[in-house]
């Protein structure tokens, strides 16, 4: 281990993260290394300076605008109800629009398709000699009765 490794241990020890063997190794090194001792003292001074940093106060009333748990639940409830109402309205609107579209489809199909359907009278005709013709055609002489 070189001095930089020991200085890493100084930082780690400061945070209470060094293991016992690491602490012991460091202690022995610091006894003999003035530079690393100076570093260790420097970090202690830094910790003190950091703790001494002034704390600023947030703007007055900053958190007053945040609803507490009760009001938040009420807000949530209002949003929830509004959301349900909006969703229901959307479903109805969608239903109306879909129904209109389907109906429009039917009516649009009527004029074109009816013409085509009207041309299907040939379906009423049966091939000559078929059972359909035999059943549907008036029997011979029937008209004469």
């Amino acid at each position, binding site marked *: 281990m070189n001095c930089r490794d020991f200085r890493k241990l100084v930082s780690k020890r400061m*945070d209470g993260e060094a293991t016992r063997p690491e602490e012991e190794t460091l202690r022995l090194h610091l006894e003999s290394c003035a530079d690393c001792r100076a570093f260790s003292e*420097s970090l202690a001074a*830094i910790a003190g300076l950091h703790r001494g940093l*002034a704390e600023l106060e947030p703007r007055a009333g900053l958190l007053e605008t*945040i609803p507490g*748990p009760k009001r938040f639940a009420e807000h949530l409830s209002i949003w929830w109800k509004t959301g349900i109402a909006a969703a229901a309205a959307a479903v109805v609107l969608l239903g109306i629009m879909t129904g209109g579209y389907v109906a429009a489809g039917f009516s649009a199909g009527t004029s074109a398709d009816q013409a085509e359907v009207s041309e299907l009278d040939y379906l009423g005709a049966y091939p000559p000699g078929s059972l359909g013709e035999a059943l549907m055609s008036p029997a011979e002489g029937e008209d004469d009765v």
Partner: protein
Amino acid sequence: MDDRALIRRIGKGDEHAFRILADRYRRPLYNFFLRSGASIEDSEDLLQQLFMKLVGGSYEVREDASFKTYIYRVAANLLIDHMRRSRRADFVDFDSLYGDGETGGARAPAPLPDEEAEASELRERYAAALETLPAPWRAVLELRVTAEMSYKEIAESTGLTVGAVESILFRARERLSGILGEFRAGGAGR
């Protein structure tokens, strides 16, 4: 009343408990954001977001973890998101906040005794030295020193590895030590 008792009360809709908890944490958390490099406006915004999350969310505080660890974890996540969005463009320097070692702004008008003046200048230098650190390093330093989180907790909060947390803290301190060492070697009050 301890944090856990307050949390339980908040869970039952107790407004007063929420206000007590907010009062307890608003200042340290605000300073956490500021010292990590967020602007005053952003720090206020982050603080509001944090408490909105607190009041609106379910409290997933583990039995073995303190509320303090939990709330700083939420704060760290918000800060990290903010850093990613802002790309540090609107991050302020510490000197503008702690220029006189107190609340920023005007210098102390009356001359101070030598020792006190040197201490004051050292605090200024320290604040300026902090400013030279990358914002994520400052955030990690704050989580360790102010929030007193362990390496593991910081790693969980930030997504860093424990090794990276250890390394960042060492490098940050090494740099701060170097800057202050230069200052001292050059003599205070230059």
